[in-house]
Every structure is written in C-alpha cells, then in structure tokens.
C-alpha cells in the first residue's frame, strides 16, 4: 500500500498532479461541460471526419450557402461564411478536404441564433471546402473549390 503511494509520488516528481491526471485521461483540460470533439478534429480522412461528426454522407442542398473567394491569395487567411436557409439549423461545420485535418470549425447554434456564421480559416493548398449543416436532425452540405496561390500551413 505504502509502496504504491511512494511509487506514485516518485512518478509525479517534476510533473504536476494535474498533468498526470490529464495524461491518465482522468481529467480533461479546459471546460468540462463542453468537450472538444477530438475524434472529429483529428480525423485525417473526409468520411472519418464526417462520421465523427455524426453526419454520415450529407445530401447536397441549395439551401446551404458557402460564401468564400474563388481564389485565395493567402492560404493563411481565407474568409469563409456559411448561411443555411433550412429551418431548425442547429449546427454548422466547416471542413477543408486537403488540409492535414479536415475539420476547421464547428458551431452549435441554440434556438434564436441565426444560421449565418463567418470566420477565417487556413488552407494548405487548393481544395474543396465543405459546409456541413445539421437541420431538423438531418445533415446537408454545400461545397466550393477555393484555389490557393500561397499555402497557409508552411513555415
């Protein structure tokens, strides 16, 4: 018993107890109530990212609009906007097919918040960008190719 305690303390020297607990997966850093969707953000394939989001294979819909430039001169800052005209839009996700990790951002929209978000993303190279929207429990998407003249992920 004491031996175990001693070993634990030994292992903990130089590391804080917190980081040990984090390493052991016992404590999640950050806000506890909203867990970051690690699996979706770390997915390296489009279908894996979509299934981690629970989206499966979303249907393309004209009611989802993805606003972005045709050509982005600087891949480090690509302005992207998503508008959904579908009723009960609850969630919006932005994915870049040819980035190392597809999923860039995910927005949860409570009732009363309009389905219109804008942000800026990085793109390593010319790629299709997907806007995936969850509305009324179903998933829809829109995509657009953005040409990048200068990548945003290099040194």
């Amino acid at each position, binding site marked *: 018993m004491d031996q175990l305690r001693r070993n634990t303390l030994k292992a903990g020297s130089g590391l804080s107890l917190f980081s040990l607990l984090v390493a052991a997966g016992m404590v999640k850093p950050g806000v506890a109530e909203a867990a970051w969707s690690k699996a979706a953000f770390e997915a390296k394939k489009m279908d894996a990212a979509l299934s981690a989001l629970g989206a499966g294979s979303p249907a393309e819909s004209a009611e989802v609009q993805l606003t972005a430039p045709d050509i982005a001169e600087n891949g480090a800052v690509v302005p992207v906007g998503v508008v959904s005209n579908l009723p009960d839009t609850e969630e919006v996700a932005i994915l870049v097919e040819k980035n190392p990790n597809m999923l860039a951002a995910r927005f949860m929209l409570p009732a009363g*918040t*309009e389905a219109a978000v804008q942000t800026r993303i*990085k793109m390593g190279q010319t790629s299709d960008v997907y806007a995936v929207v969850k509305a009324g429990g179903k998933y829809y998407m829109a995509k657009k190719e953005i040409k990048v003249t200068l990548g945003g992920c290099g040194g």
Partner: protein
Amino acid sequence: MGNPMRIRAAASDGVTEVKVLMNHEMETGQRKDSSGNLIPAHFITELNAKHGDKVVLQAEFGPSVSKNPFLSFKFKGGAKGEKVVISWVDNKGDSRSDEATIG
C-alpha cells in the same frame, strides 16, 4: 491569461450582430522553427458566447482556424446597453473572457 479580444455587437431590427477578433497564435503543430524543431500546437479549442444568461453560440475550433481568429454571428434579441460575453479556452488550458456592450 490570453490577450484581450475585440468584440463589436450591434443591434438593429431585433437582431444583434456580433463580430469578434480574438488574439491568439493558433499554432497548428505542423510547423518547424528555424532549427528544425516542431513548434507545439497551440490553438483555441472552444468558444462560447452569452447574452445575459443565455448561450447564443458555442463553437469548437481546430488548428486550421486562422491566427487571430475572426468570428461573426447573429442572434435574435439583444438591446442597446446589454452585454455580450465571449469566452474561449485553448488546448493548453489557457482561457480568456471579454465582454462588450451592444451598441
């Protein structure tokens, strides 16, 4: 403690438009420094926006959101003089919360 963000919130016709400019490196973890060592990832993972007690937006970011992230969204309600509070946490456990008055 992160650097302060710039928040602008404007109400018109019963809808409040919020624009946020965060101040964050958003390091991807894929870049190398001049001596060839990988620069560790450092990026905002979660963000939430509140109007009074009501959450009006929750977001999750990955490292491919641009440096000094920009975000804009709209919610119904909100009147001049009321507060909007934006908070984020990053993957290193750092956090920041700022508020703005709706104008």
